[in-house]
C-alpha cells in the first residue's frame, strides 16, 4: 500500500472526513424519518392500550393488534377519558397517552411530582382503567399496559420489551403469559399486594385467581422478577385513585 495512507496528517484528515460524512448521513436519516417514526410510535401506543382492554384481532394463540388504519378511530371510540394524576390531583388531558413514562420516572427521581397517565375505557358497558407502566428486565427496559376494573382486578395486559432474550424473557409478550394475568387481583384483603411472577407456583393452568401469582416462564427468572417489581412499584402509585373512586 502507498505511503500516502500511512501518514499522520492523512489519517487525521480521513478520520475527520469520515466522522462528518457518517454523522451527517445519520443525522439526515434520523431527522428526515422522525415524523414517520413518531406517527408509528403513536399508533402503536393506541394499539397497545386497545389490546389491554380486549380490543384486538387475536387468533387462537397469538397476540394480534387491531390494524394501524383502524387504531385512531377505535381509540376514540373505546377510550372515553384520558386522565393525568399528579400529586393527588386528577385532570383530563386528551393527549395523556403521549406522556413518556420513562421521562416521568426520571423526573420523579429528581424530586418532582410524577404525572401518572390513566386511560378510562368502556367496552360493552364495562369500564376499564388502563395504566402504562415501565420497568427493568434482564437486558433492557420492559413495559406494559395493564387494564384493571375499579377493584384493581386485572382485565387484560399487554407486555413488551426492548431486548429480552429471544425464546426466554422475550416470551412475556406471548399470549400464554399475558393472558394469565386476566382475572388476577392486585389487592389482597384490602391491601395492595401486586402480582408475583412465581416459580414453583404449581398452577401452570393458572386456575387459582386469588393468589396474587402467575406462573413464571422457565429460564426467564430475571425478566419475571422484573415484571413483578414493575407491577408492584408502578401500579402502587395508582392505589389512591382507586380508593377515591370507591369512596365517591
Amino acid at each position, binding site marked *: 500500500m502507498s505511503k500516502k*495512507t*500511512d501518514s499522520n496528517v492523512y489519517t487525521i484528515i480521513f478520520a475527520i472526513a469520515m466522522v462528518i460524512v457518517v454523522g451527517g448521513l*445519520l443525522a439526515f436519516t434520523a431527522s428526515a424519518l422522525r415524523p*414517520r417514526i413518531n406517527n*408509528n410510535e403513536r399508533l402503536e401506543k393506541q394499539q397497545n392500550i386497545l389490546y389491554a382492554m380486549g380490543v384486538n384481532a387475536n387468533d387462537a394463540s397469538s397476540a394480534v393488534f387491531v390494524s394501524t388504519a383502524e387504531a385512531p378511530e377505535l381509540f376514540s371510540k373505546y377510550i372515553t377519558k384520558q386522565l393525568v394524576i399528579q400529586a393527588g390531583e386528577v385532570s383530563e388531558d386528551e393527549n395523556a397517552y403521549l406522556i413518556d413514562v420513562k421521562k416521568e420516572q426520571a423526573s420523579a427521581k429528581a424530586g418532582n411530582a410524577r404525572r401518572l397517565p390513566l386511560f378510562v375505557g368502556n367496552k360493552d358497558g364495562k369500564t376499564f382503567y388502563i395504566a402504562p407502566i415501565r420497568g427493568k428486565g434482564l437486558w433492557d427496559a420492559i413495559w406494559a399496559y395493564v387494564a384493571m376494573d375499579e377493584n384493581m382486578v386485572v382485565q387484560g395486559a399487554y407486555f413488551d420489551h426492548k431486548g*429480552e432474550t*429471544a425464546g426466554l424473557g422475550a416470551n412475556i409478550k406471548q399470549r400464554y403469559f399475558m393472558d394469565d394475568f386476566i382475572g388476577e387481583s392486585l389487592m389482597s384483603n384490602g391491601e395492595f399486594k401486586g402480582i408475583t411472577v412465581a416459580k414453583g407456583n404449581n398452577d401452570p393452568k393458572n386456575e387459582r385467581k386469588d393468589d396474587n401469582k402467575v406462573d413464571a416462564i422457565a*429460564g426467564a427468572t430475571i425478566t419475571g422478577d422484573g415484571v413483578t417489581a414493575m407491577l408492584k412499584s408502578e401500579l402502587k402509585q395508582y392505589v389512591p385513585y382507586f380508593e377515591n373512586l370507591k369512596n365517591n
Partner: protein
Amino acid sequence: MGLLSKKDAALIKDPLADNNPITIQVLGICSALAITAELEAAIVMSVSVLFVLGIGNVVISLMRNIIPSKIRIIVQLIVVAALVIIVDQVLKAFAYELSKTLSVFVGLIITNCIIMGRFEAFALANGPWRSFLDGIGNSLGYGVILIIVAFFRELLGAGTLLGFKVLGDPIEKTGVYAFGYENNGFMLLAPMALIVVGIIIWIQRSRNTALVEDH
C-alpha cells in the same frame, strides 16, 4: 454455478462446509448462544447478517485503498454501525412491525465478530465483487449453523418449531406428552447452545479429519 468461476464459487461454498465461520473459524459464538433458543429468531438474525455482511463487505472493499491502516478497525466499526442504524431507522419509518422484531438484534449485529472478521481478513484485500460473494458465503455458513442449533434447541427445549406445537401440548398432555415425555428446559439455556455447537464441530471433524487442528 455457471455464472461464477470456480474460484468465485468456492467463496460461497467453502464457508458452508470446510471453512465454516462458526465451527472452523470459531467466530460469532456470542450470537450463536444468544438467539438460538427459537428458530424464528435464528432465521431473522441470519437474514440480517446476510444483508449487513454482503453490503458492508462491498463498502469496505471499495474503500480499501483509502483507509489509513492505523485506524482501519475503527473505520470498519463505523461502517457497520452506520449501516445497521440506517437500516433500523428506515424500517422504523416504513415497516414498523418488522423493525420491532429486529430491534433486539441491532446490537448483536454490530458486535458480531464474523462481520469484523470478514472485513479485516477479506474485504480489505479483495475487490468488491469477490468481497460480496465472500460476505454472502460466510453469512450463509453462519446462518446454517444457527438454524441447525435453533432447530434442536426449540424442538427439545420448548417442543415447538417456529412457535407451532409440533410435539403436542405440554400442559394439556396431548401428543408425545401423553406418554410421559417432558421438555428439557436445559436446552433453552445458553450452555446447551455451546454443547450443540460442540457436537456439530465433533461430527464435522470426525467426518473430515483433515480439519482437526494439531495443537
